[in-house]
């Protein structure tokens, strides 16, 4: 059994302050408008950490930015040359990641550090230490218990914190996490058996607090067997209003586009930006032909990819149950509604 530690809440800020001397620290911060966002902390005293609520967006943009410069280029008489900008990827401690968001990073690792080695992603990911916080109060739209990506994690984290009231139970999953503890060992004491029991109790309770009961397995099975009626795809497509929001907000949607931005007659930038497979221009080819019939299939790719193709490829769906897309769809057709609809079909 791995060693478990206790960090008193009083010691959280002092410990983080020390960590921040050698690392950039990113954590969920509640801003003065009341929104919680993952943000770079500069000065722990200036911000309000929010370890209870779910940040409004995942940590995706820290690893796959909404827009990044891949290269600058020059063209003209001197030839056509691409230069890689010097973008620093400082060693970063991500503190207070929700379980769903950490699970999502494990998935994006597969996309960008598997067969294809994405240089930018790798640079940012290799310098990252992931510290998650176990959720005991799921957000109303959450269903990570159904996608097995929370509320408490069993692997994948460097450290996992569990709030035990006056103290955190800290579990080290990887050596990088262990290092952060051993470097400042005096802050940590070994966990007692009742601490571990309490965590177990909290995990059980958390699992009972989900308000949504989402039958992901049913959707996975139906998609695998091609049992989704064409009429459902058509209805989804008809309601989709092209905002791209579901894909942009989704912690595991990684599709991107690459484009050139001309900055002058002889120079420019090659940018990589988020893209969404729900958009018409995503698959449209030069000349106008589109192999995807959008009027019928605007959302088919996205749902199939998450609930069928990734199950086939990686053994599990790539939806992490964070629920952020629930209620944000302009046309009212989020993935949870889709899954619910498939499972309702089976009801008598």
């Amino acid at each position, binding site marked *: 059994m791995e060693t478990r530690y206790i960090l008193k809440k009083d010691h959280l800020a002092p410990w983080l302050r020390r960590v921040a001397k050698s690392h950039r620290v990113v954590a969920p911060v509640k801003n*003065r*408008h009341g929104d919680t966002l993952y943000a770079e902390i500069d000065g722990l005293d200036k911000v309000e950490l929010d370890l209870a609520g779910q940040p409004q967006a995942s940590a995706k943009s820290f690893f796959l930015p909404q827009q990044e410069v891949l290269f600058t280029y020059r063209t003209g008489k001197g030839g056509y040359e691409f230069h890689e900008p010097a973008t620093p990827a400082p060693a970063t401690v991500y503190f207070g990641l929700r379980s769903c968001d950490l699970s999502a990073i494990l998935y994006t690792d597969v996309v960008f550090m598997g067969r294809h080695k994405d240089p930018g992603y790798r640079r940012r990911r290799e310098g990252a230490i992931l510290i998650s916080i176990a959720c005991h109060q799921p957000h109303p739209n959450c269903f990570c218990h159904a996608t097995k990506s929370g509320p408490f994690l069993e692997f994948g984290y460097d450290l996992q914190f569990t709030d035990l009231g006056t103290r955190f139970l800290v579990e080290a999953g990887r050596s990088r996490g262990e290092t952060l503890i051993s470097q400042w060992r005096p802050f940590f004491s070994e966990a007692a058996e009742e601490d571990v029991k309490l965590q177990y109790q909290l995990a059980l309770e958390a699992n009972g607090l989900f308000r949504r009961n989402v039958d992901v397995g049913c959707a996975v099975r139906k998609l695998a067997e091609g049992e989704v009626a064409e009429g459902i795809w058509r209805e989804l497509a*008809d*309601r989709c*209003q*092209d*905002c791209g929001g579901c894909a942009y907000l989704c912690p595991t949607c990684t599709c991107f*586009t690459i*484009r050139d*931005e001309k900055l002058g007659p002889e120079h420019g930038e090659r940018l990589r*930006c988020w*893209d969404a497979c729900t*958009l*018409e*221009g995503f698959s449209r080819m030069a000349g*106008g032909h589109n192999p995807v019939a959008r009027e019928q299939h605007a959302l088919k790719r996205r749902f199939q990819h998450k609930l069928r193709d990734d199950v086939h490829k990686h053994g599990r769906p790539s939806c992490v149950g964070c629920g952020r897309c629930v209620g944000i*769809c*302009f*046309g*009212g057709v989020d993935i949870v509604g889709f899954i619910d609809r498939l499972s309702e079909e089976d009801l008598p």
Partner: protein
Amino acid sequence: MTNSINEIENSEVLLVAGSNTTEAHPQVARRIYDAVDRGAKLIVIDPRRTKLASRAHIHLDIRPGTDIALLNGMMRAILDDNLADDLFVEMRTENFYALRDMLYRLDLAEVAAVTGVDQRLWQQAARLYARARKSVICYCLGVTQHICGTNNVQAYANLAMLTGKVEKEHCGVDPLRGQNNVQGACDMGALPGVFPGYQPVSDPKARAKFEQAWGVRLPAKPGRTLLDMTHGGGNGPVRGMFIVGENPLLSDPTMDKVRETMENLDILVVADIFLSETAQLADVVLPAASFAEKTGTFTNSERRVQMVRAAIPPLAESRTDAEIVIALANRLGYSMHYQSTAEIMEEIALLTPIYGGIYHDRLEESWGLQWPCFDRAHPGTPFLHKYMFTRGKGHFVPADHQRPAESVDEDYPLLLMTGRIYHHYHTGTMTRKSAALNRECNEAVLEINPADARALAVRNGERVRLASRRGAIELKAGITERVAPGMLYTTFHFAEAPINRLTVADRDPGSQCPEYKVCAAKVEKLT
């Protein structure tokens, strides 16, 4: 809007008129979809089969410009079925009898003929609207951009008052404002007849207040409207212009006339973030900062005044419009000094009763405040007319159907409407600079019904010539059932296909809104 956007999702009946809501006001459409999913009934009045219309329980696909006739028909149905809110009419309105008499004289067969809508359909819609407890009307430029725009609006107000669907939460008449701060620009008195807060320039008391505050004599005569200024031609009344962030060359009707005016001015000063089509004609172009580079407030469609915050300093040598105006004023011999835009807002609050309690520090601590907000203690007003019409009792103004300024004939047999699409905004000066939006849509498309396309032997995607009595442009044809036979639709976002070369300049005498929704046109195949 008299309501808040979020009230819409709790309405029981939604009547959406002349608004392509899913494309032009996505967040309002989001609430409408929500409401319908919860069981609300949706009535759409629109000549086109928009995305929203295709989800409507009742789609009244009237001929463009026949709203009044339809509304009169609906109100008559309400009287016939005894569905009027008699108590409300009695207590809260005036001039009902004039309306009633007009409605009883109405020839229902003629209404059906004029609107092209089946009588049973509009009667059904009227009953639905009148019977629900919470019915809301949303309308947009499809109602106002007609020569009878003011009467159109009044007709919708008549309907709401007749059934008592005002002065209550989830009930009301909501104009959806097109541009991000068009509400604010009006509130701030960027209009020829009123000071900030709609205080008439002709009112000596209002004038005295502003004269005292600004230390100068102020003109009493209302000024010229936009079209008066831009359509003067070579020898118009206006000889010098200062244009801030507008592109009248593309947005105003009868483009060639506007160009003539601009080219013949003694002086044209334009402040903009891009070298717009209008700026290209200027004598002096001043580079302005974008919204991301300045701090201030916008007022949205639901009258919510909220902060815009500078994320970065002004790019390159650009300056905020406020800095530009201040510099100009000082050069013109009027001393103007503000430490911050918050200080400007303090002056607005001082002089504008409906903004009387709006200060930047309050906005910083909230999601904005909805006017009227009279003082610091006032919480703002989520829905208007709560206990009282702002002007006292609601006044019925009966109106008759009025023929559009232009009608089709043998030479110009098709009826052209113009509007917006989802991916672009206004004349495209900003959205056309966005790669993602351009990828989704980078070309004006002329929507044409399959039957008309067949008759003209036009194929989908083919470039065609579109002409009116004033000019012609070339653009791509898109064959779709969204438009009825005999009708055409396109957008005004694209400088390559400047549709306002074609549109009519006839306008509503009250609102001065040009009739962008009706223009006789013809389509020709390019050889």
